[in-house]
């Protein structure tokens, strides 16, 4: 059981006059075993938050608490705590090394994170078990990423994240590179492992419909700030913030003409 808490997290890219604040003070709690959605448009800072949580880009202010311990700029045992948070990337065709086969990719995570599996045989068995968890044929252990379909690749990426025995999973737009026919399978799989392993999940997406169906809570980001958060059905079905309302209104619906938007002529920065 692990809780993930962000306290006034700020992330800055660049320095001096070219500095740009991608995240301008975000506080967010993902309660243990919950799935929280983080939605927003490109440039809103939602992916930056994920990178900050796993340490790919240290925030310049604020605290990131994993079970109450601040992991920002952590060393030693606290740094290891951060590895309890694993991330699944948007596009598995670039998050899997093209030269490493399925087994080697997953085994790498086992080598680092599972010292209890001492020999090759034990790891091989664990790789096979993980492939079964993500509903892939263990016989594909020798396949290269290029020999798999997009959905299969993403499932391997999930298996690799699970191999690291995480307690928190960050899913960063994990289906946006996939066809809609495959999307459902990957999302159902994510929900299955979340429930079976009682994982705490931060689910980053621009797809409101997916978030509404998958997440119990949702936070809406715009320009590096949270503008609204709360139970998913409340936020999406009855949004309070104008930006959330705009987002919900812009979702294409089968057969419903896109609502006419007055196009601003003056000073539209977009």
């Amino acid at each position: 059981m692990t809780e993930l808490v962000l306290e006034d997290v700020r992330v800055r890219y660049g320095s001096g006059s070219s500095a740009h604040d991608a995240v301008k003070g975000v506080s967010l709690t993902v309660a243990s075993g919950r799935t929280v959605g983080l939605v927003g448009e490109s440039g809103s800072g939602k992916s930056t938050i994920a990178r900050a949580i796993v340490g790919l880009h240290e925030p310049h202010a604020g605290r990131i608490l994993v079970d109450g311990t601040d992991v920002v700029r952590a060393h030693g045992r606290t740094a290891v705590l951060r590895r309890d948070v694993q991330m699944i990337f948007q596009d598995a065709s670039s998050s899997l090394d093209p030269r490493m086969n399925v087994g080697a990719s997953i085994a790498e995570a086992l080598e680092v994170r599972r010292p209890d599996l001492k020999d090759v045989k034990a790891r091989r068995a664990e790789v096979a078990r993980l492939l079964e968890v993500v509903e892939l044929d263990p016989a594909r252990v020798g396949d290269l990423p290029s020999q798999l379909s997009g959905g299969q690749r993403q499932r391997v990426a999930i298996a690799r994240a699970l191999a690291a025995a995480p307690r928190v999973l960050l899913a960063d737009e994990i289906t946006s590179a996939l066809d809609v026919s495959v999307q459902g399978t990957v999302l159902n799989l994510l929900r299955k492992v979340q429930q079976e392993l009682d994982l705490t999940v931060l689910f980053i997406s621009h797809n409101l419909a997916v978030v509404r169906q998958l997440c119990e809570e949702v936070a809406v980001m715009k320009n590096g700030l949270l503008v609204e958060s709360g139970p998913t059905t409340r936020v999406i079905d009855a949004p309070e913030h104008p930006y959330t309302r705009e987002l919900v209104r812009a979702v294409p619906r089968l057969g419903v003409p896109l609502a006419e938007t007055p196009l601003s002529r003056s000073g539209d920065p977009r």
Partner: protein
Amino acid sequence: MTTLPPPIPAAPAASSSSRHALVTALRSPLGIVASLLLVTLILLATFGPVIWGETAKVADLTQLSMAPSAAHPLGTDAGGRDVLARLLSATRISVVTAVLATAIGVTLGVLLGLLPTVAPNWVARVVNSILGVALAFPSLLLAIVVSIIVGVGVVSVTLAIGLAMAPAYARLAQTLGASAAGRDYVDAARVLGVSRFRILTRHVLPNVRDPLIVNASIGAGTALVASTGLSFLGLGVQAPDYDWGRMLNESLDGIFVNAAPTLGLSAAIVFAGVTFALVGETLARAFGLNRSPRRQRRRRGASNDEVAPLHVVDDPVLRVRDLQVRVPRGDGWADPVRGVSFDVGRGEIVGVVGESGSGKSLTCMAVAALLEEPIEVAASTVQFEGTELTAGGRVSSRISSAGVAHQLGARMAFVLQDPATSLNPALHVGTQVAEVGLLHGGLDRKSAHRRAVDRLDAVRIPDAAQRAQAYPHEFSGGMRQRAMIAMGLMGEPALLIADEPTTALDVTVQREVMSLLAEVNEVKGTALLFVSHDIALVSSFCTRVLVMYRGAIVEDLTAADLAAGRARHPYTRALVEAIPHLEAEPGTAFATIAEDAEFPTEPVGSRS
């Protein structure tokens, strides 16, 4: 760091596929020539001194500086020794020097170049500035300086050339390493807690290896020229040893009496240099770094019955019959579009939906004559406003008739998925929009620019006159896409083809672009062919929808029928059901389509 047990070995799949590529490359004419030359060179270098070494030492004082004869095919040198024997036995020292120097250069270069990936930032900065300075010197000059400092002789020449080559390889390794290190898989390894050193050896090195090997092989040729050059200058191999460079120097004294030694030596140097270059080229092809497209003609497959369109329009703006696209793949061909027939009526908005690989984009690019060799586009008819675009059953991107090209340019517009890559980053947006008027509108520069500003204003670019002077990177994604549409509106297009025009954009921006397209259709009567993977978006925008599956149109239905759940093809129905929608019950499972699901590629019967 704790010692970790050995990783699970890579399965044979990886190595066997790369081995296969190597075998294929070796079997090509280039590969055969390269291997023959390389084997010759290796044999000469290995056995040359053994076979001809003694002969080369024999100094016949009665035969000084003789012209070629039967006994001495390249004549003799000033000491009365046989030049050919000396040339052949000098192969070893010349080639070994070059190869060793390259090995030193590459090893040193890779170490220096990849150091920044693992070392702290300040080390990276120091290494970078040293490399920058070293790269500013011509490497031969650098080699001369080094060999003067280290002292003359074969060892110092090898070292000098190796050191002189290192900066270039360091820069190459650095660039390749930086691009590999920026990949998501390196981030993923960092998140797992894999150490920097292991990331370097396991993820970075294997992914930079191929281009480095190719460069090293070509670089060995350069090293050979450099080492013979230094020996020629007297800085390299010293008597009694000799290599091609020193022999070349000695032969120059008698060049007007006997040119044969000089020519023979030059030929030897060229031979070795060409060998290294060809081996490099062969490896490059084997690694797929510059694969030359093989053009093998394929007979047109037994012409199956023409696919009838599911919906025929009178007086269409676009009429397509039996369109097929073939793409070379491996040794054969793939057919991503196999027999597509459809009409687009005047002023109609037709959507094309399908998943990746369904052929929807290729279909649109094919009818716009945008596909180039080696892709083949065949059709029995592609008519745009009554003009036939096929010639000899093919649609070629090289349209022979200026009239047809002009008509396509002015009357058909194409908007691509990613406006970030379809605009030239080095030119003002206004200039690029105006260019269409210059090329197809018959406008002069000034009026083309005026019209461009007018069009940018029409697509709601604020302060169009001023923003026309901006570069694409100063525009947001939505504005760039509007600029692309403005480009399409420079003429009076009868048809605008939009290929996933909003996929790279946010939903709120998507809505702006869509309503702009709708306005173009309404005001100008421009027909739209709108390609998207998003069946909800297509149904909310189009009047008629074509559903593509595995290169065929499987259903042609009105958006109203689609929205009302009257789709008849199982694939269409599965697609509709798979869309996540805002009315779904929270917490329920997502609808799925089994990965191995097979749908019929037969279309459902005609509606009209």
